[in-house]
């Protein structure tokens, strides 16, 4: 069974919500990323999105844009990220999702990269710039290798389109909370909970909400109407502000604890 599926059925049994941190791999270097991922996994992160840096992150706000730049400047490549995943897998069974723009995965052959990813223990891929219209290029390859394609729905996704995307979703569905790019926000749209409830009713797969969530308090109302939350830029910002690897790790753990408090059913 795919680690993502086992994790969500376990969470369901325990009546818990998933906390899914996004970490931009290689920001500021891969050693730091590795330590952060291991620490998050050991302290209760449920699924981790390993962000593959791209030179032109069109769907990302400034936090992740700069993180991508720092990571690329530090020499991060897909190959080196894979090497890091190999090391991580020796120590944890946390489900890992590769979060990437398509060009980096297309480069060197998408199928090669998927096979390699599966081999080293990647459980899912979220490809930001491959929408439903282009799934047929990637989904059969991913399915054949038991790597889940994490489908996205946006605030603009509606009606028949929403149903089509939800229909064959694997792993979980990533619900984008806001019209816009990634980045921590002070507040989320007023109709978000209603919208999440609607999607939850339509979806067989678990739904996880992301974009803009930066604290336990913000995660709390969202967790009520979803199966979990993704938090990206808020982790990235903490890493950026840290002077040392140790500081980055402890700052990320602090945020993780805050999120855990936020989503716990108390």
């Amino acid at each position, binding site marked *: 069974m795919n680690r993502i599926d086992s994790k969500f059925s376990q969470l369901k049994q325990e009546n818990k919500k998933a906390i899914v941190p996004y970490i931009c791999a290689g920001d500021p270097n891969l050693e730091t990323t590795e330590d952060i991922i291991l620490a998050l996994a050991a302290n209760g992160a449920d699924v981790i999105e390993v962000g593959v840096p*791209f*030179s*032109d*992150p*069109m*769907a*990302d*706000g400034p936090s992740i*844009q700069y993180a991508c730049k720092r990571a*690329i400047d530090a020499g991060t*490549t*897909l*190959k080196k990220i894979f090497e890091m995943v190999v090391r991580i897998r020796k120590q944890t069974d946390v489900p890992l999702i590769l979060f990437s*723009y*398509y*060009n*980096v*995965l*297309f*480069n*060197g052959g998408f199928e090669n990269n998927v096979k390699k990813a599966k081999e080293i223990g990647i459980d899912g891929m979220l490809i*930001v*710039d*491959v*929408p*439903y*219209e*282009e799934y047929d290029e990637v989904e059969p390859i991913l399915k054949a290798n038991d790597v889940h394609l994490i489908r*996205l*729905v*946006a*605030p*603009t*996704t*509606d009606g028949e*389109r929403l149903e089509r*995307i939800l229909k064959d979703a694997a792993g979980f569905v990533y619900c*984008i909370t806001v*019209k*816009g*790019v990634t980045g921590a926000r002070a507040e989320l749209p007023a109709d978000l909970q209603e919208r999440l409830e609607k999607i939850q009713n339509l979806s067989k797969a678990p739904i996880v909400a992301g974009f803009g969530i930066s604290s336990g308090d913000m995660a709390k109302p969202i967790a009520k109407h979803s199966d979990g939350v993704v938090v990206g830029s808020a982790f990235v910002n903490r890493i950026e502000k840290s002077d040392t690897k140790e500081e980055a790790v402890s700052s990320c753990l602090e945020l993780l604890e805050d999120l855990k408090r936020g989503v716990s059913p108390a």
Partner: protein
Amino acid sequence: MKTGYYGIYGGQYVAETLMPAISELTEAYKKYINDEDFIAEYKSLLADYVGRPSSLYYASRLTEHCGGAKIYLKREDLNHTGAHKVNNTIGQCLLAKKMGKKRVIAETGAGMHGVATATAAALFGLKCEVFMGAEDIRRQAPNVDRMKMLGADIVSVTSGSSTLKDAMNEALRNWVTTVEDTFYVIGTVAGPAPYPEMVKEFQSVIGIESKQQLLEKEGCLPDMVIACVGGGSNAMGIFAGFENDADVKLIGVEAEGSGIETGKHAASINGGRVGVLHGNKTYLLQDDDGQIIETHSISAGLDYPGVGPEHSYLNDTKRAEYTCIKDNEAIEAFQILCYKEGIIPALESSHAVAEALKQAPKMGKDKIILVNLSGRGDKDMLSVREYLDSH
């Protein structure tokens, strides 16, 4: 073939948030492009507002200088706003208006597409915001002032190499936030479908007119058609008139900057490989790890690491040939056209002229070369001056 594809190229590689807007655009485009009233309004604006048909000019002194094939210039530089870009922005802004959009955004490199968008936005009473790389704002300053005069807001983009690619990233980020009331006017035959097809359609007037004009003047088709290629909209526009005439050789000219071997260039087809960026699969300049690399060209409008997907297809099927012109060759062609014909061409178009200067002497005097003079060079005084001072 899947919709929006040219062989393996093209597609709709964008974030989900944008996809519903792109589907809405596709529907609207299909509806209006077959709507007689829409086409009549568009054509009447091209005639009375843009000043079409643009003239087809026999460049006799340039021809004499080369001593070979007769060179004709399709004078897109004489259009209102000074380049071919306006053919497309009138079409897209008219469509935006019909779709009930209140605001348009655009990316621009040389500023010609920005000026043309700001112009059309003023004409249709739409709010306009133009994204432009900081480096391009510097080197194409006259166009920045023009856009401001026309009421557009300019957003200076400082990420990456601060040029066209980065402006497009920022425009896409803005669009994702404002998608419900905003129409994104893409300036070239790239981006997610239906943009490549739509921009080609609006630019095809160049090829259709040239063909008819040449038949009137010479009674025959050209032997060769030459156009510069950044994203490739002026090239696709003029090629459109001749794509089914197998005997007409089509040449797209890429910007070779300082030379492909130096790595400082913008020749995506000649120096790149297939990848996915800005909504489409096409030839891209990228490193071994799939990161897009910074480009270089003296011409801001060609300074882009990708190319329209149909050009990639025409290259692979060998229907068109893609050559390269270096910065120094473009400057030389720029000067020759100034001195011999009294025409100051845009640096983009100078690449096409430079290719004609290479081809014409190799061809007989009974042969005809048609060059798309896609824009005028008033905007380029600073770039040319800086180049000449430093070389």
